[in-house]
């Protein structure tokens, strides 16, 4: 392991809307209407003060009324924006908030470019083709949205080299920063050509407009309108927040998927800091994915192609790096996950070796890694992907097989695996969490389901998400028993009660690529946090419902 490294780059945000300064108790309210519909429910109205990185959003109710919570906006000049599929803001686009409460009439007009407003889910709903045709597109969402694909004019032959090029990119690539893999990657040429042929039938290669109807999900109604959403813009477009979590003091921490920094945000003051992580493999993609806390509250990062784990001492603000041993490391080495939660039990931290479909444990006493094949019992003909991880009190590992359909328990002593296939085939379990009752809550990405594996009874329950083509990435179970989820497709946060299968889907103000989700249960109601991986922002969502304990 290397000596701890630490130096902080403090970037003070302009704090326009946040200071506890005089004049904070401003009120902005109003109505939203259009000529086509009159008063409109479910329109997102966003206000961002000049020079501030913070945008606050509320949603109009059934009467078309909206209201920002008292004290959330300070006096000043604001730009307004809206989100309502099929519409754009006619006016006003700016507003001056003074001492008196403001009541504005927001007018919408029909949008001239509906395609620019479609979510990935909307595109999947709209595009003709079979589920098998569309399935490979799920991999595209990791790096970019679908609009650029569907606006392209490539024919099938022209698409092939584009897809080949993209297959060489590292998965920690975003539109603002492309990173290439060092190790060559095997590509299924026949499958790729089939995908190219399909895409050429749904893009603009044959006509200047799409030969199918563009469909959008309905606007929010009812409970889905009772929410406040706060967006914190990060200072560079190349910051790709992947995992976001709060600490015991309410500070927000995030992993940056494409740059070697750990980020910190104080949501009360708006101060943003970055802690550089040493680049130990120059020329390889940078950035980290999984961000987890150990039993002492210190943070751990999985360093992806930088081939190691990092422990961040949250008090001293220093890193300790645990590089993968040279005997195990190679150009394909990629560690996306880390699970240190029960490392105090046996001195072992779990991680994964993506390229070899394996898990590894790091022995903290010697800094050595040991590789374990959790799928050793199974045939080698199926693609597996040890991905989301959770550890129980004895440090036994529960790993989600994102490539296939299994939850795998790996014994902390023997390394032996017990494999539990999910009831739904090829569900591709992605990420989740283990609650205090021994229930593993996780997202079945490809099945469009949320699921629970009871580690005591070794049984599953599954719930379909309300909107097809959501492709949930992660699940967080809060302490009221509700589930929170998000993903890369629908620009919505899902709140789901498994006791009665009721759901609320909160539309977000911008195209939002959500990965890890986190719920701060110290607030009442709870507060949902996530990063916008392609949008360089941290997202806070506060439901306005009463909390049920």
């Amino acid at each position: 392991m290397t000596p701890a490294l630490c130096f902080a780059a403090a970037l003070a945000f302009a704090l326009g809307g946040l200071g506890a300064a005089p004049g904070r108790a401003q009120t902005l309210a109003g109505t939203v209407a259009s000529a086509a519909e009159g008063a409109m429910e479910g329109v997102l109205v966003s206000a961002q003060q000049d020079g501030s990185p913070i945008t606050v959003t509320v949603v109009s109710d059934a009467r078309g009324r909206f209201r920002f919570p008292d004290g959330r906006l300070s006096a000043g000049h604001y730009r307004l924006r809206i989100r309502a599929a099929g519409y754009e803001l006619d006016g006003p686009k700016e507003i001056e908030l003074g001492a008196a409460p403001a009541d504005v009439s927001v007018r919408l007009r029909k949008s001239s470019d509906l395609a620019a407003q479609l979510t990935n889910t909307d595109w999947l709903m709209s595009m003709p083709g079979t589920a098998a045709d569309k399935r490979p597109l799920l991999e595209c969402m990791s790096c970019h949205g679908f609009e650029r694909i569907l606006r392209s004019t490539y024919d099938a032959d022209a698409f092939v080299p584009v897809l080949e090029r993209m297959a060489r990119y590292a998965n920690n690539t975003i539109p603002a920063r492309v990173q290439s893999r060092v190790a060559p990657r095997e590509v299924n040429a026949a499958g790729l050509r089939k995908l190219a042929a399909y895409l050429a039938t749904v893009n603009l290669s044959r006509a200047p407009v799409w030969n199918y109807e563009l469909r959008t999900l309905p606007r929010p109604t009812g409970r889905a309108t009772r929410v406040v959403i706060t967006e914190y813009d990060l200072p560079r477009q190349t910051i790709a927040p992947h995992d976001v979590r709060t600490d015991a003091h309410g500070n927000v921490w995030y992993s940056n998927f494409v740059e070697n920094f750990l980020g910190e945000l104080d949501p009360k003051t708006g101060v943003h800091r970055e802690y550089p992580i040493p680049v130990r493999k120059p020329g390889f993609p940078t950035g980290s994915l999984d961000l987890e806390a150990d039993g002492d509250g210190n943070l751990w990062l999985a360093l992806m192609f930088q081939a190691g784990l990092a422990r961040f001492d949250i008090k001293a603000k220093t890193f300790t790096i645990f590089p993968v041993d040279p005997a195990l490391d190679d150009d394909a080495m990629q560690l996306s996950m880390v699970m240190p939660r029960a490392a105090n039990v046996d001195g072992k931290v779990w991680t994964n070796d993506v390229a070899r479909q394996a898990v590894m444990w790091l022995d903290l006493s010697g800094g050595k890694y040991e590789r374990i094949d959790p799928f050793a019992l199974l045939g080698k003909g199926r693609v597996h992907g040890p991905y989301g991880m959770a550890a129980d009190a004895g440090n036994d590992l529960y790993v989600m097989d994102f490539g296939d359909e299994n939850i795998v328990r790996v014994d902390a002593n023997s390394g032996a695996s017990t494999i539990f296939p999910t009831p739904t085939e090829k569900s591709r379990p992605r990420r989740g969490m283990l609650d205090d009752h021994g229930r593993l809550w996780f997202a079945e990405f490809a099945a469009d389901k949320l699921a629970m594996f009871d580690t005591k009874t070794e049984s599953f329950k599954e719930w379909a998400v309300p909107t097809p083509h959501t492709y949930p990435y992660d699940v967080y179970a809060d302490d009221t028993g509700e589930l929170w989820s998000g993903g890369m497709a629908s620009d919505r946060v899902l709140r789901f009660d498994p006791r009665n299968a009721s759901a609320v889907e909160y539309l977000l103000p911008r195209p939002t690529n959500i990965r890890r989700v986190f719920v701060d249960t110290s607030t009442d109601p709870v507060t949902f946090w996530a990063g916008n991986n392609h949008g360089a922002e941290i997202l806070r969502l506060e439901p306005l419902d009463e909390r049920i304990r």
Partner: protein
Amino acid sequence: MTGIRARPRRILLVGLIAGFAFAGLGPLRAGGVNLGGDDSGADEGPSFFGFIRDADGSAVTDAKVTAAVKSGGALVTRSNSMGVYKFSGFGKDIDPDSVTISCAKDGYRQANVVPRSRAGADSKDPVEVECYLQKE
């Protein structure tokens, strides 16, 4: 322990029902991590399947079924609405004779496990094992 034997005339029926129960599985589907990637089952060993029954021969649903491998590790699944279970995808290196099937459900105890004869079977032919539970 009460020994319970399966009735031979049911064997064909078992095979037919199991065949219907899993008819929808089809070939392994695409959708791996790579663009255009496909799974291949070419490297797999035999699958295991069978019924979970009670003393009357009735199907027992949602029973936990474990396929434990002598060298360590296991697969665990549940019987479906017809009392059928299936394990697919064991590696070809796993000796079918090293796999032990067991079953469990609250309120029951395992009574008997009946493997079907594999005489003349190919190494990739499915292995049928019935597991019987008795109410406590």
